[in-house]
């Protein structure tokens, strides 16, 4: 129900953005419907489908189960989501290699509860292997940290 409502909102925003579909002066070529026509009606179809989904959710008797099975499943997901989010944000300051080392090390320490040397190994070997494969092997440059003038990564 909530997902359908979110889809309706996205559709409404897209339809509002494409309201020029009703502008009498449309495309540049004879017969063209213009740039807004296609997104407007696509969004309309999406909105109508979402309204239908919401209607079915209201009318049909569905099992009353929660979105998550239990608290442990929420924790399992959050254990992944929050570090991914922080990892992606830290890129622009820490660069790819430092951020990846920290991210791998965090998982080894927090979820794996490994000994110190295994944590360090995970934090160092992964960025090093990626550097060798991507930057040296495939010549794909990855973002460097704000310390780049001093450090080589």
């Amino acid at each position, binding site marked *: 129900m909530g997902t359908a409502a979110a889809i309706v909102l996205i*559709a409404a925003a897209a339809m509002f953005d494409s309201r020029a579909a009703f502008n009498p002066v449309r495309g540049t070529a004879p017969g063209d419907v213009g740039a807004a026509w296609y*997104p407007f009606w696509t969004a309309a179809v999406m909105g109508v489908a979402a309204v239908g989904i919401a209607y079915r959710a209201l009318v049909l008797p569905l099992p009353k189960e929660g979105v998550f099975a239990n608290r442990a499943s929420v924790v399992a997901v959050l254990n992944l989501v929050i570090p*991914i989010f922080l990892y992606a944000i830290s890129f622009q300051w820490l660069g*790819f290699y430092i951020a990846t080392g920290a991210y791998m090390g965090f998982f080894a320490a927090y979820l794996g509860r490994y000994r110190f040397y295994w944590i360090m190994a995970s934090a160092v070997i992964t960025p090093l292997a990626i550097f060798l494969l991507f930057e040296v092997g495939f010549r794909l440059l990855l973002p460097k940290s704000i310390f780049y003038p001093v450090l080589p990564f």
Partner: protein
Amino acid sequence: MEVFGLLAGGFATALQPINVAFLFIGVTLGLVIGVLPGLGGTSGVAILLPISVVIARGDIAGADTTTAVILLAGIYWGALFGGVITSILFNIPGEPWSVVLLFDGFPLAKRKGKPGLALTSSFLASFVGAFIATVLFTLFAKEIADRALAFGPPELFAVFALSFATLVGLGAESPLKALAMLAFGLLLAAVGFDTITGSQRLIPFAGSEFEPLRNIQINLLAGVGFVPVTIGLFGIGEILASAEEQGIGYMEKISARLGLKDLVEALAALRKRWFLVVSNSLIGFLFGVLPGHGATAASFLGYGLARQYAKNKEDFGKGEISGIMGPQATADAAGVASLVPMVTLGVPGSPTSAVIMAGLFVWGLQPGPLLFTEHSGFVWGLIASIYLGHFLTFMLCLLAVPLLASIMRVPYAIITPFIVVISIIGSYSLNNSMLDVAFTVLFGLIGYWLRKMKYPLAPLVVALVLGDSTERELRKTLIAGSGDPAFFFSSTLSTVVLILAAIVLLLPFVGAVRGRLRRAGVAAVDTE
């Protein structure tokens, strides 16, 4: 026959050392990806797309676009086989299309104590299914492409419409959800510049002077990247879903080492079931050609058919070999067949082939019938590599099961963040864009949530990759007909295909209305 001459040329291309090397890398990676429950074939192909760009532009001596497509397709073939191993040995499906093997594969391995036979039967059926499908691909692909060369905008639009209709009308658990996802994909594809008029579309907060927002808007003008979205939906989304579904560290384990005895026993089992395997392979091929279905739906169809026509229905679910061979042959045939519409018509048959098709765009190729005339070496090299890829995968599976199964022993705290890191590199390195990384994370969350709410992702991905072409052909048809919608029906072919699309689209809705009327009739009789 001309086809066999072209195929021989394809083998000459595919057998070049560099192509064999990347085929080997591809199928090995695919097998590893197939074994890992948190990573699917689609995300594996998407993550390695940036590397394929490096290969395709010739940075590696001797490599070209054929090498790149062989690598990506190899991952797909490997993943088609690899998911089997964890389903049978650990009772955990490595891929969506190997879920069906939990019914009979795991019981045969555990209850009957024959893991080697279960695995070998499955590999053998996969190989036969894929081989039959590849022979059909070889025989009919050029014929289809030659006919498709005569297609104009109305016919092309009709083909796209039929693709979308099959995504909604055939097989979707909820047609309304499939329709909403399809429209969402088309809408995402419309973000940015309109290619015909050059107008900006669907750019949030357009005109804002806030610097970070303006940077995002400038990046969005080029459109929403297909690769970051796919990596998010499938890579990050699957990781989150598997973290929740499987918990951490739980698995049942059976060890297996395959021997000649298992192969002989599996061959005897295949001889007894040759009709099932051949007929399921043919059905899998026909099913796989339909856009959006791919191997997963085919595997369930294959299991249903095997059970339906079996004399020993009561043995199904207890380790019956037909319950392994039937779905495997169907799934692999469908997997191969999903490349047929991509190569011949420019319409992907499955999410994985949609990602491969996106690769073709990035390398500067135009998927569709022109490939056969303008890049004949590429197409026939790909087709030849399908034969080689499946043979290689089959041999690797027979030889390396214990090694592949040991991948499951890599700790969760290492493998999960590693997949995330590789996903992030995959999304960043295509355009060196942090916005792409943000899209990957965002669509990872969206993909996880949509999966949880049982929204199908295939329509979204296929619509995202076909969105631009669909709109272009729609508007070209209108321009050619000076705005008259009747021009969509200007040829017999477009008329037939559009009518077919309408029928397919309306099938589930008609079925629902009939069901309601029937229930109302029963209720009325009850009241009387």
